[in-house]
C-alpha cells in the first residue's frame, strides 16, 4: 500500500501540494490566450489525474532502492527516464481525450485544437512532474527507513537493558556468599540461635534480590529493605568493624527508581570502605526529599593509602548509566572522596506508583 494513500491526513497534504501546480498550469494556459473557462476546466481534472497517476513513482522507487554505489545510477536513471516519458505521454494522452470529451460543452468547442497545439508542452511538463514525484518518493522511503532504524534501535536498547538487568541479578557476589556461609558454619557451634538468624537473613536477602530482578522499576522502600537484609549479614561477618547509620526520610520511600541501583553502592562501600580498613568504620545510607527530588547518599570511610581511582569502577558506571537512562537530565550522579569520606550521591525526581 502506498504510504500517501494509507493516511487521510497525508493524502490531504499531498493533494494540497497539487493546488499551486494546477494554478501554474492555468496561468500558463491563460498566457497562451486560453479563456478562463478553457484553462480551468482542463487544468483541475488534469492535475487530479496526475496526482494519482504519478503516485506510481513510489512503487518504482521501492523496487529500485538507491544504493551507495554510483554504478546503479546509470540503470536506475534509464528506468526513471523511461517511466517518466511513458507517464508524461499517458498524461498528455489523457488531456487529449479530456479535451474531446469536454468539447460538447458550449463555449469549449476550441479546446481540442488548443490542446493539440499544447501536447508537446504537456508531455514535457508531465515528464518533469513525474521526475519530481520520483524524488519525493525516494525522500519518503528514506524517511521511512530512518524511522524504522530508530524504532529498531530503541528496541535493541530495551533488549540490552533487560539483559543487563538479568546479568545484574545473576551477579550475586560469590565472595559475599561464601564468606557468609563460612560465618554461618562458625556460628552453628558457638551460637546456634544466631546461626539460625543468619540463615533467615541470608534467605531473606536471596529471595529479595531474585524477586527484584524481575522488575524494571521499584520503590526505594524495597531497595532499602534489600540493603538492610544485606547489611545485617555483613554486620555478623564484620562485627564491631561495621557501624551502620540509617538516615531515611519516610517521604522518600515510595519514590520509584531503576531496580538494584542501591545494592551496588552498598556492596562497594563494604568492599572498599569496611573490608579494606582494619578498624572498619561507619556506613551511612541517607535518603532525603527536597523540592520534588530524592537525594540518595551512601558514605563510607575511604582507604586513604589506596590510590585515588581513575574514573568510576564498572559497578558505579553502570549505576550512573541506569540512573541517567531512566531520568535523563532530571537526575544527577556524583561520586568522590572528601575529608576521608567516600560519598556517592544520586539525585532523581520523586515519582511514585500512580
Amino acid at each position, binding site marked *: 500500500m502506498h504510504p500517501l494513500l494509507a493516511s487521510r491526513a497525508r493524502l490531504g497534504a499531498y493533494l494540497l501540494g497539487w493546488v499551486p501546480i494546477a494554478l501554474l498550469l492555468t496561468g500558463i494556459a491563460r498566457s497562451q490566450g486560453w479563456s478562463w473557462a478553457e484553462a480551468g476546466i482542463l487544468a483541475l481534472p488534469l492535475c487530479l489525474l496526475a496526482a494519482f497517476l504519478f503516485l506510481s513513482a513510489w512503487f518504482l522507487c521501492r523496487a529500485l532502492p538507491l544504493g551507495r554505489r554510483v554504478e546503479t545510477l546509470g540503470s536506475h536513471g534509464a528506468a526513471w527516464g523511461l517511466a517518466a516519458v511513458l507517464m508524461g505521454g499517458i498524461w498528455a494522452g489523457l488531456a487529449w481525450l479530456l479535451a474531446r470529451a469536454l468539447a460538447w460543452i458550449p463555449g469549449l468547442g476550441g479546446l481540442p485544437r488548443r490542446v493539440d497545439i499544447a501536447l508537446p508542452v504537456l508531455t514535457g511538463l508531465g515528464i518533469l512532474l513525474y521526475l519530481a514525484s520520483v524524488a519525493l518518493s525516494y525522500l519518503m522511503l528514506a524517511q521511512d527507513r530512518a524511522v524504522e532504524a530508530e524504532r529498531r534501535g530503541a528496541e535493541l536498547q530495551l533488549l540490552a537493558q533487560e539483559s543487563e538487568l538479568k546479568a545484574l541479578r545473576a551477579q550475586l557476589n*560469590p*565472595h559475599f556468599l*561464601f*564468606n557468609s*556461609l*563460612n*560465618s*554461618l*558454619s*562458625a*556460628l552453628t*557451634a*558457638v551460637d546456634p540461635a544466631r546461626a539460625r538468624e543468619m540463615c533467615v537473613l541470608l534467605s531473606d536477602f536471596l529471595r529479595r534480590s531474585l524477586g527484584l530482578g524481575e522488575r524494571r522499576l521499584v520503590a526505594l522502600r524495597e531497595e532499602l529493605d534489600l540493603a538492610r537484609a544485606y547489611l545485617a549479614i555483613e554486620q*555478623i*561477618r*564484620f*562485627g564491631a568493624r561495621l557501624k551502620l547509620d540509617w538516615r531515611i526520610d519516610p517521604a522518600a520511600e515510595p519514590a520509584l527508581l531503576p531496580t538494584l541501583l542501591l545494592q551496588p553502592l552498598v556492596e562497594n562501600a563494604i568492599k572498599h570502605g569496611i*573490608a*579494606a*580498613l*582494619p578498624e572498619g568504620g561507619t556506613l551511612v545510607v541517607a535518603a532525603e526529599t527536597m523540592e520534588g527530588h530524592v537525594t540518595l547518599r551512601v558514605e563510607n570511610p575511604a*582507604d586513604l*593509602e*589506596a*590510590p585515588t581511582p*581513575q574514573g568510576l569502577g564498572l559497578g558505579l558506571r553502570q549505576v550512573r548509566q541506569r540512573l541517567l537512562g531512566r531520568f535523563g537530565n532530571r537526575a544527577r550522579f556524583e561520586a568522590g572522596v572528601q575529608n576521608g569520606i567516600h560519598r556517592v550521591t544520586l539525585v532523581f525526581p520523586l515519582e511514585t506508583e500512580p
Partner: protein
Amino acid sequence: MRALIIDDEDLARAVVREHLAAHPEVEVVGECANGFEALKAVAQHQPDLIFLDIQMPKLDGFEVLELLEAEGKRPAVVFVTAYDQHALRAFEAHAVDYLLKPFSKERFDAALAKAHALQAAKPTVPPPPATELAAAARQGKPLERIVVKDGPKVTVIHLDRLDWVQAQDDYVLLRTEGRNLLKQQTLASLETQLDPSRFIRIHRSYILNLDRLVRVEQDSKEHRDAILRDGTRLPVSRAGYQRLRELWEGA
C-alpha cells in the same frame, strides 16, 4: 606443632580454632586480624604452620607470605579463603594447600595431615615463592601494588605511584614519591608481573612508568635519554627505544 590463625573476620578464625581443638598436638599460639599483626606475631611466636586468609585489609595473604619469605621465615601455609576456586586451582601444581570457605571437618583434617607430613619430611625443594603464587591467583592480570620491607617498616607501593625501577644486582631499586626503596627481586622477574602497556623496559637496567615519560632525546648517534616529568634523565637502549616506538605506533 605451633599454629597461627590469620583472618580479618572473627568468625572465620573461630571456625579454624574450633577444628584445631580436635587436634591436641597443635598449639594455637595466636590469632591475627590483619597482615601487620601477622608479621609481628610470626616474629614473636615462630609458628610452624599458619592458616592464612587471602583477602585482608592493607596487606593481603600473598603479601604477608612474601614479607615473611624476605625475612627468611617461612612457616608451612594453608590458605583459607572464599577466593574464586579457579584462581586457586593453579596452587595444586605448586603443592600448596588451601581451604575454600566454608570447608568440612574432613577437608580441614586432610590439610592439617598434609602440613604434618611436610614438616616431618623436611623437603629439599623450597616452597614456591609467594609472588609466584600471587601471580597464579591473579590469572594473568597484572600486579597492582608492591610491598617492600624498609627496615622495620612495611611500605605498600601502588603502581601508579611508582616512577621507575633500576636493577641493582639481586635487588631492584624502586623510585616512588621522591624516595628510593630496595627490594630483593630481579628486574626480569618484576618485569613479567607488570602491566606491559604501562611499564616499559627501556634499558637493560631500567623499567619506566610510561606515564612519567615526557620525551626521548638523542644525545649522540648511539645514545638516547628518556626525560621524565620531574626532569630525571634515564638511559634508553636501542632495544628499549624500539619497544617505545612499537608502543607508540601501536597506539
